[in-house]
């Protein structure tokens, strides 16, 4: 279950601790009790990595490697897949589609399931094709598992449960389609993520049959532990801003605040434009036929009038296309990034949390010099944990930003193109 150790970037602390124990500790941070057999599976993979990484010194500032670094030596073939680039579909080996929504009616409730089809060439998957049905709750579950496992990685957003603003009925076709597209995006983003893609829960999500999945779900950390986490989160936020926050994360925080503001504005603007265009379209629909009506009472200018009427009709169609372009491309992306900005804020908070723990321990020690040596180990571990969290976040952040840039670029270019086509017509 613990994937953290397999990220090639952040080096494992070379305090001589075994990777197995480390992962156990890492798991312990979250207060979860993972079954030993899973850790054992980790050990195998981690062993390889540890060998490779021993060459790195503890000076992490030099070795802050993000996921794209080609300098990490190549190990067993399964690792190669971790170094794929976002923009290179040729290197992808996991293809997921979400489609075919279907309604299920039971005695207690009605819900929608979506078909999730996976095609892969990866070794660890038993077969190369999978087809399962999942409902929204399952997606929620997957997301929370990923968040637990990687508190400082950026987990892609899920579509919301309800959309209050539009008062869209839960089972309207439009709503279902929007949700389906968002779910599809969600899974693909996970698949593209160098770390998350190897998450065990993810694999199970993609491959397990319905009954397998529900039994697996029950295994996970109980509600209590998750509550404990929440309590800690609240406590640490009450404590206020973390003292020793590295500069870079403060920058990130500031950036995120502004970004979140701007992206929300953009989302509103885009919706407003869509609405205005819709109104415009409605008026235009009436405008054209008037000219045709007029041409009926005229002789000489009848042709010109009819000509104008048909041009107006074409404008109408072009407007429709433009609107469709907006709603298919721009609006969903902006919305996704609105959600992303929320996620990022909480990721930063979590990082702060972790750091907070470290700091509080350090403070505690300062007052108990005698027991310092006892704590030093713990501190060391915590420090490393913070370190790892930081690096994971940094790496992912850069990756996310690149993605965002690319997305924005392509989206807006798309909008521009659509507008071009509109005017050309």
């Amino acid at each position, binding site marked *: 279950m613990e994937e953290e150790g397999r990220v090639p970037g952040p080096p494992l602390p070379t305090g001589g601790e075994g990777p197995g124990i480390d992962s156990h500790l890492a798991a312990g941070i979250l207060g979860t009790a993972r079954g030993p057999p899973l850790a054992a599976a980790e050990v195998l993979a981690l062993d390889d990595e540890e060998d490779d990484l021993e060459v790195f010194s503890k000076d992490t500032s030099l070795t802050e490697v993000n996921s794209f670094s080609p300098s990490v030596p190549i190990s067993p073939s399964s690792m190669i897949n971790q170094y794929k680039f976002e923009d290179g579909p040729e290197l992808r080996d996991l293809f997921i589609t979400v489609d075919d929504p279907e309604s299920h009616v039971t005695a207690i409730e009605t819900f929608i399931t979506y078909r999730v089809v996976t095609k892969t060439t990866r070794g660890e998957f038993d077969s190369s094709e999978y087809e399962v049905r999942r409902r929204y709750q399952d997606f929620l579950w997957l997301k929370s598992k990923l968040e637990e496992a990687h508190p400082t990685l950026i987990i892609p957003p899920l579509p919301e449960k309800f959309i209050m603003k539009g008062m869209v009925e839960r089972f309207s076709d439009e709503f279902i389609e929007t949700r389906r597209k968002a779910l599809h995006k969600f899974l693909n983003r996970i698949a593209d993520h160098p770390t998350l893609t190897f998450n065990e829960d993810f694999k199970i999500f993609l491959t397990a049959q319905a009954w397998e999945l529900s039994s697996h779900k029950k295994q996970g950390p109980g509600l209590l532990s998750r509550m404990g986490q929440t309590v800690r989160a609240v406590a640490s936020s009450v404590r206020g801003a973390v003292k020793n926050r590295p500069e870079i994360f403060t920058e990130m925080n500031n950036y995120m605040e502004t970004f979140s503001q701007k992206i929300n504005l953009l989302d509103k603007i885009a919706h407003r434009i869509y609405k205005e265009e819709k109104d415009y379209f409605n008026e235009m629909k009436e405008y054209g036929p*008037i000219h045709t009506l007029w041409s009926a*009472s005229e002789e000489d200018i009848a042709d010109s009038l009819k000509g104008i009427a048909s041009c107006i009709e074409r404008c109408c169609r072009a407007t429709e296309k433009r609107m469709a372009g907006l709603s298919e491309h721009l609006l969903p992306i902006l919305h996704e990034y609105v959600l992303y900005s929320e996620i990022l804020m909480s990721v930063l908070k979590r990082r702060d949390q972790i750091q907070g723990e470290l700091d509080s321990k350090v403070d505690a020690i300062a007052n108990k010099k005698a027991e310092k040596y006892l704590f030093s180990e713990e501190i060391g571990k915590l420090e490393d944990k913070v370190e790892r969290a930081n690096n994971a976040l940094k790496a992912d952040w850069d990756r996310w930003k690149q993605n965002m840039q690319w997305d924005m670029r392509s989206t807006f270019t798309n909008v521009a193109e659509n507008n071009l086509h509109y005017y050309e017509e």
Partner: protein
Amino acid sequence: MEDCLAKKLEITVSEAEKRTGRNAVNIQETYTAYLIETRAVESQSEGQCAPVESLWRRYSEFELLRNYLSVTYPHIVVPPLPEKRADFVWHKLSADNMDPDFVERRRIGLENFLLRVASHPVLCQDKIFYAFLMQEGGWKEMVNETGFQLKADSRLKALNATFRVKNPDKRFTELKHYSDELQSVISHLLRVRARVADRLYGVYKVHGNYGRVFSEWSAIEKEMGDGLQSAGHHMDVYAASIDDILEEEEHYADQLKEYLFYAEALRAVCRKHELMQYDLEMAAQDLTSKKQQCEELATGTVRTFSLKGMTSKLFGQETPEQREAKIKVLEEQIQEGEEQLKSKNLEGRDFVKSAWADIERFKEQKNHDLKEALISYAVMQISMCKKGIQVWTNAKECFSKM
């Protein structure tokens, strides 16, 4: 058209000015005065610039002129004035008569009116019209002396009265229908156009918000910053471009409005004809009944039931002298009536002839003008699209550099 005033005289309404003064009921008010400038054309070919004559007139004087013309030439489709109050406005345009844009558009409309009258073969020869252009003082008195006001009142009444004509002229009936249709379709079109303009304005202006947010956003970005900033600039350009576009469209709307009002003038001519026809029919009917009465009295037979017949039966017949007297009166009336009928018939035929000639002229003018207006509208739309293409091509470039 050779005698057309427009060929001899250059007419412009060049300025508009706000004035305050006392009006007819001696209350202080603000109004706009328009400067009419005229200059003789002929002397220009000799290389000399003829002197420019000018005088100021206000809208109410234009109205007076038009009323006079409509009454004096009922068979002519008299050019309409620009609207008194701003109609068919969309939200950005103000409905205020003092608004500079409105005043400007009205100035153009008034100039157009004068040019149309001046180029009309019949109307341009009118002395009152000439005096309107040239004689500042005493013009109003001159108009009133023509006594057209009396005719104006009766005409107004007649236009609004309802009556049935037994043998309507098909052509005029069709024309009346046409003018009704034209009125209704153009006003519908103008209404919808105003709404479309409103919406289009909205779409463009909201894009302006993009500009603002992009520029704010670019402040926190490193690589994307430049692209965003310049894209934002283009969004601002896009949003601003709509103002000019819609202003141009207003001119198109004004052209359509002219013909909306022209339709009214056309209708008035048709009504006048109807009126004349009705008059004629009434006169003919009157004559017939009088002739009948005469016959009855002369022969003593009562063909139709009449109250007189009844009373005479009840109260005794009248004396032969009385009958003779009555017959004489009737015969005189009949003679008058026949003469009247003749002249009315003549009048009617003349009216139809000249009216129809003017209607033909009007039709040609209308077709020509409307076609031009529609073409210019299409050209406007094309130019709007070209601008759009330019802006979005630039924006696209900026985006791809992000």
